[in-house]
């Protein structure tokens, strides 16, 4: 993997030489996130979010393992053990708020990461596998987050479990047996709570495993970049360390400031007060909504209010409940075929005038409407708005993108990343002689690439 000009790891001391022979872990790190990984020199701040997502996965695992030391997954005591964590355990309040808001931040950075992928078409060849693994990670995250939200065993936990497992009840014929099987009963109870805790502990490590595959797949073609032009030569890249460790470090600092502000000053702003009422199987809260990061998909679920029937016969082909469930899962599963829906050879949205219009004035407002409607009560005008937005969401991916990629005239692409950055590229003006130009190294643009170390 990597480019021919990538720096090679050279152990200096006798000890690192010994380690390198027995277990070349320092070499692996050097090639993955060190000076041995050449990265396009023009990455903007949208390329920070992958590292940030990895950071929040670690935050969630560390705080989660610690919280599990004090929590008991038993319907009789679960709610009380969460209060025990908040009141009795040293810094328990901080750890729990960090875990709850850490989930929100994990989703914030993941959504930014996904939108980066949409705009710059990071899913296109040769990076389809990275994208597919990313969608898998996102689905695992949603499952993990849902099950984690059940654990405090408050009203929202309980009714969230009831409603989400109810989605499986929509499957024809086997739906209700499956729902009962998932819950281990006819309503959420101890059995469901225990298995959700077990899986909530397991899945983050599965996510970590898929993240490793995701990064491995990334290192084969290397990172994409805002021009969408592939790396051609050494002057198109800089070593990951120190250039992007510093840039990611700065982004991490900014995000940590926001994270600390939420944990310490607005810890419950993204939660629901109802979840501080212990689960009561006999009473549903009046306004039940999922956590904010599920709102767009929840809006799609609720957009289907009528059965699909054969007109004038009254024969129901697909009941509304099933339609909503199919659409909700379909809205994400759609991403699995995205690399083959958008056939335009141009990657970056910057060079695709038509695509860019539909992105900023179509997809983004649609997602905003779905987000807002998902958190609003199921009444007018939110239902109609959700229906319109849902329709556009599917049209955008299934119809608009394939048509755009056929009819659009893209803007001229720069010859190389170097040209995009510097405005000129000598290798473009004078066709390359086929050998590395020795006199090149002393010139200004090359010199500016020397790391400060």
């Amino acid at each position, binding site marked *: 993997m990597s480019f021919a000009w990538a720096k090679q790891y050279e152990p200096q001391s006798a000890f690192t030489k010994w380690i390198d022979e027995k277990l070349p872990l320092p070499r692996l790190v050097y090639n993955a996130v060190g000076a041995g990984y050449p990265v396009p020199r023009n990455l903007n701040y949208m390329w920070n979010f992958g590292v940030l997502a990895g950071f929040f996965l670690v935050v969630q695992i560390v705080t989660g393992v*610690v919280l599990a030391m*004090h929590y008991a997954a038993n319907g009789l005591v679960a709610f009380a053990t969460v209060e025990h964590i908040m*009141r009795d*355990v*040293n810094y328990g309040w901080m750890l729990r708020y960090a875990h709850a808001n850490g989930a929100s931040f994990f989703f914030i950075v993941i959504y930014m990461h996904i939108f980066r992928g949409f705009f710059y078409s990071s899913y296109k060849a040769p990076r389809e596998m990275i994208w597919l693994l990313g969608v898998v990670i996102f689905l695992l995250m949603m499952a993990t987050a849902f099950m984690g939200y059940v654990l405090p065993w408050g009203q929202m936990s309980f009714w969230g479990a009831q409603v989400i497992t109810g989605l499986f009840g929509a499957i024809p014929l086997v739906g209700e047996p499956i729902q009962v099987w998932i819950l281990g009963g006819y309503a959420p109870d101890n059995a469901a709570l225990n298995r959700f805790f077990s899986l909530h502990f397991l899945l983050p490590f599965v996510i970590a495993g898929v993240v490793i595959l995701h990064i491995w797949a990334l290192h084969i073609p290397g990172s994409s970049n805002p021009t969408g032009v592939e790396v051609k030569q050494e002057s198109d890249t800089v070593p990951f360390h120190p250039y992007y460790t510093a840039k990611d470090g700065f982004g991490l600092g900014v995000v940590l400031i926001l994270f600390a502000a939420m944990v310490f000053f607005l810890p419950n702003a993204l939660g629901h007060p109802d979840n501080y009422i212990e689960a009561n199987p006999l009473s549903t809260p009046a306004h039940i909504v999922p956590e904010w990061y599920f709102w767009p998909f929840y809006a799609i679920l609720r957009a289907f209010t009528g059965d699909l029937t054969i007109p004038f016969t009254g024969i129901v082909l697909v009941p509304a409940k099933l339609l909503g469930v199919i659409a909700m899962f379909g809205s994400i599963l759609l991403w699995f075929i995205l690399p083959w829906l958008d056939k335009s050879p141009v990657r970056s949205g910057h060079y695709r005038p038509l695509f860019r219009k539909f992105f900023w004035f179509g997809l983004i407002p649609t997602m905003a409407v779905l987000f807002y409607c998902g958190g609003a009560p199921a009444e007018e005008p939110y239902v109609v708005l959700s229906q319109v937005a849902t329709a556009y969401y599917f049209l955008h991916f299934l119809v608009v993108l394939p048509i755009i990629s056929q009819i659009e005239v893209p803007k001229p692409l720069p010859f190389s990343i170097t040209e995009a950055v510097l405005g000129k590229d000598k290798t473009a003006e004078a066709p390359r002689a086929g050998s590395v130009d020795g006199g090149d190294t002393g010139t200004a643009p090359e010199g*500016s690439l020397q790391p*400060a170390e």
Partner: protein
Amino acid sequence: MATDTAATTEVSAAAEDGVRRRDWIHIAALGTAGVGGASVLIPLVSQMAPSQDVLAASTTDVDISAIAEGQAIKAVFRKQPLFVRRLTAAEIEEANKVDVASLRDPQTLAERTKEGHPDLLVTMGVCTHLGCVPLGAAEGETRGDFGGYFCPCHGSHYDSAARIRKGPAPKNLMVPDYEFTSDTVIRVG
């Protein structure tokens, strides 16, 4: 890019002195990150220390009015057994007869009881060797070679003042902090 080139020139010029302007920001950034990272360890480590509800349960009141002479009761202090024994006159005499200097953990009986209550011996029921519960507090249990407590795990013998006399235990049975809240009630802890 002009600024980039200029900055590079400046850095390489400064590098000849061995001190670079960038060193300062490296130290500042890594120092801040280091302090921040290290302070994260505080909650992660201290969450494993006893929580507030455990600390709140760290005193125990024991009613001693019903303990007859020569009798012992077991209470619970910090989830550990607590032995409260009312010594007989013979036991007190026997304990005071011992040459304190010859003991492994030299203490007189008076040092192990409260003034005005020389017959009330309050000790933890935790062998100082490896933490088993010694026998001798309950009726009919063996009290060892020295008439006090006997730990069956590794054979430690304690005398009537619960001092170690024979066996592997290094210390006398621990006397916890306690006080008389009335003539008949002690508060341990």
